[in-house]
């Protein structure tokens, strides 16, 4: 998983690129968590336009970011979710918890 993390005035933007499965999930979570811990942003936007494939590991990653942002009293949004990943989130009901653009 390739991550591009930008800290802007409006908050943090994370661009995810590649296939998000169990194999890379732990490392992805670790890198995102340490970026959030380091700068404690008000908002965090996960841009998933570069996700070629995602399974339920992506649910754990997104909910992990959601919880981490709650811990630092911030909020998070997910945007540009490809069709396949959207279907995974929907099947799990994640779209009822997390804000999708």
């Amino acid at each position, binding site marked *: 998983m390739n991550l591009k993390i930008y800290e802007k005035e409006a908050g943090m933007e994370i661009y995810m690129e590649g*296939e998000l*499965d*169990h*194999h890379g*999930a*732990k490392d992805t*979570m670790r890198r995102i968590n340490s970026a959030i811990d380091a700068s404690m942003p008000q908002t965090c936007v996960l841009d998933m336009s570069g996700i070629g*494939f995602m*399974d*339920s*590991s992506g*649910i*754990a*990653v997104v*909910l*992990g970011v959601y919880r981490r942002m709650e811990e630092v009293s911030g909020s998070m949004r997910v945007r540009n979710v490809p*069709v*396949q990943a959207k*279907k*995974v989130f929907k*099947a*799990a*009901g994640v779209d009822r918890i997390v804000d999708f653009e």
Partner: protein
Amino acid sequence: MQPVNEMNLEFPSRSVNEGFARTAVACFAAQLDPTIDELNDIKTAVSEAVTNSIVHAYPGKIGPIHIRARIFEDRSIEIVVKDKGIGIPDIEQAKKPLFTTGNEERSGMGFTIMDSFTDKLVVRSRPGYGTTVKMLKKMLPFAGLK
């Protein structure tokens, strides 16, 4: 019903093989001329089944995972993912949404995803002998043949 074609695949339970397994099954399923969405459904379901075996079947060691895929004349594919691991003591509990014995990077949604991305899901397990997940997916008829 006799299968039109069949393939068998075996690999060790290393997480790097998750991508290989779902892509290999998708390549085989391409013979049915599925839509992109159907192909993605197959990839997703296979990824979940294989990941379950990789995470749970062989604690602290590496063991074999076997996949058999068969395609039928009615444009359906049957995918069987099998391990010889520790098995699942309570399948009904394991299938419940959000239930997981895995770490923080697991969501407990694997069986829920397999169930909603395929037409039929059968899970059989015997503690000490292994787990078999059988999934059936039927492609929609060709647009021109409806």
